[in-house]
């Protein structure tokens, strides 16, 4: 039996099509993927992301404990800021990609992928030296409010001055009378917030956002549009574009790896890989022939297999067949060409600058 978020009834009442995602009964779409995608690009969309997990480190040494587990550096940010980071294995591959919130040096909250909740918590318990992690996954619901009208919508429902919450910053406050962590983060490429609240408050918050958002053209959005939005930004999806066998450098996520900070798991492997040169890279490409690239399709050069597509779709905003995939470093430069094998057909593709979607 799939797990249900506190918003399950709300999704069903809206007529959502539900699917099993990582053991959770989640809305894949309500009306139309394209309409939901465009609502986020042009207006505002709401996503139930309560299936994501949370792990908390509290007490003296919390920051140092977490900093030894993640690839980014919590010492370089201030209280009230968050960082995107990897939990890496010894080889520099991903256990998961996460967001770490620094409330104070003695309180760090980590948001992890739904599909990796149990694995991550076990891994953190095993590797944490100092503060013991606490699984807070069942204590939080999470609603992502994304789109150019997200800030206006959230502001009308809170006394917190959201203009003071910059990108990757957060504050604690009340939204629609509900205690929430108001985090200016997201996975769509648009401005917006992720609101963490108690599970019992989630329905009230969701309904308040839907009602107040009417004037903004708000739409409830499912996992399908979440995926097409992030693909247009070339944001990595764990299990598709990043996993335990591809390193953070290969994934093009060197910017979340601080090789100059004190030891963290995976650092030695990445230092060595950087010195030796990265042999394969995650690139964004467009098909120049007919078709749509999809996860798992082979990438060929001159008839020989050289890589694999990790994500792909017909981008609803860019209106092109776009893909992400690993290729040898010599094929990674913008303008490089190769073929994607689609049902036995070699379809030409060209590496392009990413994100695919650029804000007007």
């Amino acid at each position, binding site marked *: 039996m799939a797990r249900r978020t506190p918003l399950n009834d709300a999704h069903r009442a809206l007529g959502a*099509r539900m699917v099993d995602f990582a053991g959770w009964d989640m809305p*894949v*779409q309500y009306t*139309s*993927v*394209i309409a939901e*995608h465009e609502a986020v690009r042009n207006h505002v969309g709401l996503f139930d992301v309560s299936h994501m997990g949370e792990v908390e480190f509290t007490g003296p040494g919390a920051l140092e404990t977490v900093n030894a587990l993640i690839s980014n550096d919590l010492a370089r940010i201030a209280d009230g800021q968050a960082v995107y980071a990897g939990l890496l294995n010894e080889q520099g591959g991903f256990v998961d990609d996460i967001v770490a919130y620094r409330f104070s040096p003695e309180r760090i909250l980590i948001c992890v992928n739904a599909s990796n909740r149990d694995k991550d918590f076990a891994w953190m318990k095993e590797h944490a030296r100092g503060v013991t992690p606490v699984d807070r996954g069942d204590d939080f619901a999470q609603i992502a409010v994304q789109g150019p009208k997200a800030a206006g919508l959230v502001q009308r429902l809170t006394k917190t001055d959201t203009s003071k919450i910059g990108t990757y910053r957060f504050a604690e406050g009340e939204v629609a009378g509900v205690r929430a962590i108001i985090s200016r983060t997201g996975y769509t490429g648009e401005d917006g917030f992720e609101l963490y609240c108690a599970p019992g408050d989630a329905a009230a918050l969701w309904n308040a956002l839907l009602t107040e958002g009417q004037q903004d053209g708000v739409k409830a959005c499912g996992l*399908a*549009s979440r*995926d*097409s939005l992030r693909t247009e930004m070339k944001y990595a999806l764990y299990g598709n574009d990043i996993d335990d066998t591809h390193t953070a450098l290969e994934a093009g996520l060197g910017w979340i790896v601080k090789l100059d900070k004190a030891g963290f798991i995976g650092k030695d492997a990445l230092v060595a890989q950087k010195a030796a040169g990265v042999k394969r890279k995650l690139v964004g490409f467009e098909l120049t022939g*007919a*078709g*749509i690239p*999809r996860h798992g399709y082979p990438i060929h050069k001159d008839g020989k297999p050289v890589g694999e597509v990790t994500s792909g*779709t*017909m981008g*609803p905003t860019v209106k092109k*067949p776009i893909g992400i995939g690993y290729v040898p470093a010599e094929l990674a430069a913008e303008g490089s060409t190769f073929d994607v094998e689609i*049902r036995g057909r070699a379809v030409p593709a060209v590496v392009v600058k990413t994100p695919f979607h650029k804000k007007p």
Partner: protein
Amino acid sequence: MSDVNIPGNLKYTNEHEWARVDGNKVVVGITHHAQSTLGDVVYVELPKVGSSIDKGEAFGTVESVKAVSELYSPVTGKVVKVNDALTTAPETLNTDAYGAGWIVEIELSDTSQLSELLDATAYGDLLKNA
């Protein structure tokens, strides 16, 4: 349910294609239920006119933003027409699944195969029991 739209004059397959029989030819498309399940169709791959296809064989694909679905032929025969308009307007499969969203026309090798297809009542039962 908006999924229940099953014209009585058509035949159906278990894989949610419809077939409109006209003499020794059948026009084939996907059902309202199929397009609704797929979501927004963004790409259609059509067979070549003149190609031979077997009943149950995959003859093309329909792709939504999220997923790829094979099209299975309800009958054995030769492709005599394809709906090229779907190449530039694949969304027609969503807006008019039983009309302008037709996919191919097949000339039958054996008209007796038609009796193996589902009628509207049987297809309706299939959806109810799904």
